[in-house]
C-alpha cells in the first residue's frame, strides 16, 4: 500500500511539475492555430496531433492540466474554509442558531448537486471572457460544495469541545481565541486537511462534467473538461486514439488522488 501511495504521489508530482512548466514544455501556445495543419495526426511537431482548429493538442493538454489541477485545489480551499466557518458557527452558537445552520446544511445536501450548480451558473453570464469563466466555474463549485464537509467539521468540533483536554484547558483558564487557536484548530487540522483532499477530485470531475455540457470553462482556454468535449466529434472510423490522452490523464490523476487518500486513511 505504501508503494502504491508513493507511486501515486510521484505521478501527481510529475503532472503538477509538467503543468507548471507548460510554457517551457509546450511546443506552442494553447490558442495558437496551425492553419495548414488542422486535425493532424501524431508527429514530432505535434506529439498528440492537432484539433480541428489546428491547435496543438499536447500544448492544450499541458495548459489544461494547469487550469484544472490548480483551480480545483483553490475551489477545495474555499469549500473547506466555508465548511470550517459554518461548522464552527454551528457548534459555538446557541441551540437555535445551530439548528438553523444545520437545516441550511441539510438543504444544501438534499438539493441535487448538478441541478443546483447549473441553476446558479445560468444566473451568471455565459458569454464572459475565458479567464472569468474559469474563475466563475471554480468559485461556484467551491462556494456550493461546503455542506458535506461542514457536517463532518461540526461533528468533530463538537467531539473536541466535549473532550477531556479541552475541559482541562478551560479549567486552566484558556478562553476564546486562545482556546480556539492553541487547542481546537491544531486538533481539527487533520479533519480539515482530509476534507480538502477529498474535495479536489470531486471538483475536478464536476468541472469536467460542466465543461463538457458547455457550462464550464469557455474557449479558447483549455481545461480537462473543455478538452474532453472533443470526444463528441470522435469517430471510431477515424481511428485517432491519441484523442483519448486527456481522458487517460484525467482518470489517472483522479485515481492517484484516491489512492493517496485511501492510503492516508489506512
Amino acid at each position, binding site marked *: 500500500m505504501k508503494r502504491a501511495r508513493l507511486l501515486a504521489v510521484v505521478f501527481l508530482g510529475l503532472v503538477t511539475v509538467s503543468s507548471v512548466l507548460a510554457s517551457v514544455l509546450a511546443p506552442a501556445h494553447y490558442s495558437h492555430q496551425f492553419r495548414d495543419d488542422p486535425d493532424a495526426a501524431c508527429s514530432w511537431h505535434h506529439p498528440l496531433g492537432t484539433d480541428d482548429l489546428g491547435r496543438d493538442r499536447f500544448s492544450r493538454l499541458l495548459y489544461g492540466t494547469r487550469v484544472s489541477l490548480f483551480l480545483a485545489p483553490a475551489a477545495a480551499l474555499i469549500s473547506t474554509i466555508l465548511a470550517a466557518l459554518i461548522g464552527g458557527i454551528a457548534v459555538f452558537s446557541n441551540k437555535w442558531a445551530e439548528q438553523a445552520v444545520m*437545516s441550511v446544511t*441539510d*438543504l444544501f445536501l*438534499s*438539493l*441535487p*448537486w*448538478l*441541478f*443546483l450548480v*447549473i*441553476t*446558479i*451558473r*445560468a*444566473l451568471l*453570464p*455565459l458569454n464572459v471572457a475565458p479567464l472569468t469563466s474559469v474563475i466563475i466555474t471554480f468559485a461556484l463549485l467551491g462556494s456550493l460544495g461546503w455542506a458535506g464537509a461542514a457536517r463532518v467539521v461540526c461533528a468533530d468540533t463538537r467531539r473536541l469541545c466535549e473532550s477531556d483536554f479541552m475541559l482541562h484547558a478551560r479549567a486552566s483558564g484558556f478562553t476564546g481565541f486562545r482556546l480556539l487557536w492553541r487547542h481546537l484548530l491544531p486538533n481539527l487540522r487533520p479533519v480539515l486537511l482530509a476534507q480538502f483532499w477529498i474535495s479536489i*477530485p470531486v471538483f475536478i*470531475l464536476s468541472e*469536467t*462534467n460542466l465543461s*463538457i*455540457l*458547455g*457550462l464550464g470553462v469557455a474557449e479558447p482556454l483549455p481545461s480537462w*473538461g473543455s478538452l*474532453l468535449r472533443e*470526444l*463528441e466529434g*470522435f469517430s*471510431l472510423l477515424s481511428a485517432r486514439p491519441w484523442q483519448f490522452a486527456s*481522458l487517460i490523464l*484525467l*482518470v489517472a490523476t*483522479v*485515481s492517484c488522488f*484516491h*489512492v493517496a487518500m485511501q492510503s492516508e486513511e489506512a
Partner: protein
Amino acid sequence: MSTLVKCAARTLLVVIIAGFLGATLVRLAPGYGVAEEELDARLNADSVQALRDAHRDRGTIFSFYLRVAQRMLHGDLGFSDAMQEPVRQLIAERFPETLKSVGFGLSLGWAIGLSLAILSVTARSAAVDVGTGLLATLALCTPAAVLALLCVLAQAPGRIVIAATIFPKVFQYGRNLLLKNAALPHVLSAHARGLGRSRIFLRHTVPLAAPQLLAVAGVTVGIAFTTAIPVEALCDMPGIGQLAWKAALARDLELLVILTMIVATVTLVANSTAELLGKAAAHR
C-alpha cells in the same frame, strides 16, 4: 407515526425554503422582466416602452413570492420562454423518461455494486479484491459526461451510465460495512461454533448492514438524478435532465428553479423513506 410526521414536515419545510430561494434567484436575476423582443431594431421607442411596461414587475419582492406561490398552488408552473411551452406540460412529457432512466440505473447499479461487494467479502481472494476495487475506482474516477460520450460512441444505452456512477458508491460502502460486520464478536463466535459461512453471512452479517444500506439508497437517488443531466443531454434522451441543460444554456431560470425544486422534493422523499425503512429495519 411521529417520525413520519417529522419527515413530512421537514420535507415540506425544505421545499418551501428551496422555493423561496429559487423565487429570489429568478426575481433578482439580471435581465428579469426584460423581453427579448426589445432588441428588435425595427421597433420604435413607443413599442419598446410598451413591451417594457408589459413585462415590468410593479410589485415588491414579497408580492412576487405571493403571486408565484398562488400560481403554483393552482397547478400553474409558468411558461418556459426557452422551450415555448407551459412548464407543467414539459415536465409531464419528460419526467417519465427520467424516472425510467433513474429506475433502471438505480436497479442495475445496486445489483452490480452489492454483488461485487458480497463477492469481494466472501471470496477472500486478493485477486478478486483488487479486481473489484480497480473496477470501482475506474468508474468513480471517470466523469459521468465522459461515460455518456463513450456510450454514444459504442451505441450503448445511456441509462447504463447512471448504473456506472451508482455501483462504485454502493460497492465501496457495502464492502466496508460487510467487512466491519463480519468482524463483530457474535459473528466470530458463530464461526467458532462451526456454523456454515453462507448461513452466518445471510443470518448475521447482512441483516446488520440493512439499515445503513437503506440510508445509502436514499442518497443514491439524488446521485442518479444528478447523473441524468449529462446522460440525457449527451445521449439525446428527452428527460428532465436534458430539459435542465437546455434551460441552463438558454438562461431560462424559472424553468430551472422549478426543475430543481421537483428533483429536490423527489430526493427528499426518497431520503425520508429510506430513513424510515432503515429505522424499521433497525428495530427488528
